[in-house]
């Protein structure tokens, strides 16, 4: 079997978000880039499957859509243990464009399992995985929190209201994974970092495709107002404040 993991290159989750002067874009200067946490967990699970199932997995490939600045992120995926990487050389403007590029890049590669994180931690669109499965005309299972290989079959657990359901999709398929798919992301070892240099990283030029969405404006959230404490016995004061000061009743 061959597994593909779609990797999104995102700002570190602790990044202090600043906007450009016109509020039309996020200021990406001095941002530290990381593998999208859900994608990183998906990669971890793929590597566990490769290690724990004797010869069931031949190859774990990672793909990202991004310019050259995304290479350290994709190379980290190689250092963690992916066998090879693909980068489609274009700016990942929206989910449609990313899904189009990935679909085009992998349509002839015959991956058996394609893993996508449930969302990316930058724009949280939650759209790419579903779009990709549609473009590749593959079944998809969403909200996957467990994936197991039993012989030639793959079983996945997905979270539903009040519990889990186990699904046995036909191969190939797209799994849109969430937290729980692996315990914690792997830290690359020194050996892995050294070997990442020698692993194949293929750069593909993009196919012609437009982004279907664009950002009009960003607004920072309202700053939190100061909290005023009212004595529990003083209901009249509370009502008065809500009425005259907060003006919500």
């Amino acid at each position, binding site marked *: 079997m061959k597994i593909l993991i779609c990797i999104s290159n995102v700002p570190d989750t602790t990044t202090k978000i600043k906007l450009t002067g016109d509020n039309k874009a996020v200021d990406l200067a001095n941002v530290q880039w990381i593998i999208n946490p859900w994608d990183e967990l998906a990669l971890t699970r793929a590597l566990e499957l490769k290690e724990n199932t004797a010869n069931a997995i031949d190859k774990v490939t990672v793909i990202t859509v991004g310019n050259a600045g995304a*290479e*350290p992120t994709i*190379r*980290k995926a190689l*250092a963690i243990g992916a066998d090879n990487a693909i980068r489609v050389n274009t700016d990942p403007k929206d989910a449609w464009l990313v899904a189009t590029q990935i679909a085009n890049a992998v349509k002839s590669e015959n991956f058996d399992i394609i893993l996508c994180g449930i969302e990316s931690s930058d724009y949280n669109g939650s759209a790419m995985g579903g779009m990709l499965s549609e473009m590749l005309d593959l079944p998809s299972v969403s909200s996957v929190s467990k994936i197991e290989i039993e012989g030639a079959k793959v079983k996945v657990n997905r979270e539903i209201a009040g519990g889990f359901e186990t699904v046995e999709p036909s191969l190939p398929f797209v799994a849109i994974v969430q937290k729980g798919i692996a315990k914690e992301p792997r*830290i*690359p*070892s*020194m*050996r892995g*970092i*050294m070997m*990442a*240099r020698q692993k194949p990283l293929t750069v593909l030029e993009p196919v012609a495709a437009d982004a279907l969405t664009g950002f009009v404006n960003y607004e920072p959230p309202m700053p939190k107002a100061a909290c005023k404490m009212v004595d529990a016995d003083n209901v009249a004061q509370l009502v008065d404040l809500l009425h005259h000061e907060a003006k919500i009743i």
Partner: protein
Amino acid sequence: MNFDFTEEQLMIRQAARDFAKKLEADVIERDTNGIYPSHHIREMSELGFMGMLVDPKYGGGGMDNISYVLALEEIAKMDAATAVIMAVHNSLPCYGIETYGTQEQKDKFLPSLVSGEKIGAFLLSEPEAGSDASRQKTLAEDKGDYYLVNGTKNWITSASTGSIYILFAQTNPEKGHEGINALIVEKDTPGISIGPHEDKMGLRSSDTHSVMFTDVKVPKENRIGADGFGFKFAMKLLEGGRIGIAAQALGIAVGAYERSLQYSKERKAFGKVISLHQAIAFKLADMAVKIENARNLVLKAAWLKDNKKPYGLASAMAKQYAADIAMEVTTEAVQIHGGYGYVKEYHVERLMREAKITQIYEGTSEVQKIVISRSILRD
């Protein structure tokens, strides 16, 4: 001039940073109770931090010294005790055997050191030979095909958890320091006994003991270098070892500074966060400048070593300065935290206790000044 790190160096620093987060979870408990970080050292071995400088043909990471100091800084930032175990292991036994050992010694000892299966220790200090390391009283009598060792070593990091010792002992007292030999000794050799765990001020989670040798037979083939090379070997190793300890001291300072920076933006006094009080802001500025200077010295020493240029003066400067500013920065960090700095929960009191040893071991700050002054007066 180029101040950029390579992509690999950045990846190693990030790997160390990610790993170090795990150290934070139990560092206070280990420090309080003197618990050795066994499971952390195991994971560090799996990640390759315990033999990162060694040639990959022996299983090592083949990394450069820049990567090494970046990793050590990150680990020391969270836990200087774990950092010293890593620093001693890499800088002294691993580097020493790889650089000066025979092919047989490298083949026999390096793979298990690099995999972390065996931890290395460096046995130079004695009850009456610290800074004056040439006055070795431990004897290694030449008995033909083996040395017979008798004596006591003090303040040995990883003495009980470690199992491969680099031991220094006097073979020809009449030759003074030129009579000293360095021997590779396996801890399970008969006649070795370990003293009680030292109840230290800081680095309480690393194991430090005295080690007694009574009629211990060490095969001749375990000697490093020619007869009488031991003292020179020790000095060579310490030149490099100082870069590691300087990186550890830097990490301690950075840990205290980053915690102070965060605390000062949250803690309010006299109606505003304390970082807006000039008394605190200036302390933070002083800390930042000292850390920047120390980091530049540490990186320069590592760069010189990587580029096969003389690094003895640079490593002494880096060690002395980084250790001294670690003490200053951690003391100020406690001051910024006020009463909270004096209790364990906020970490800075531990960092202050940890900083102190960096001015003492691997050559005291005063010894570094001897090295520095001799060098600048000679040139």
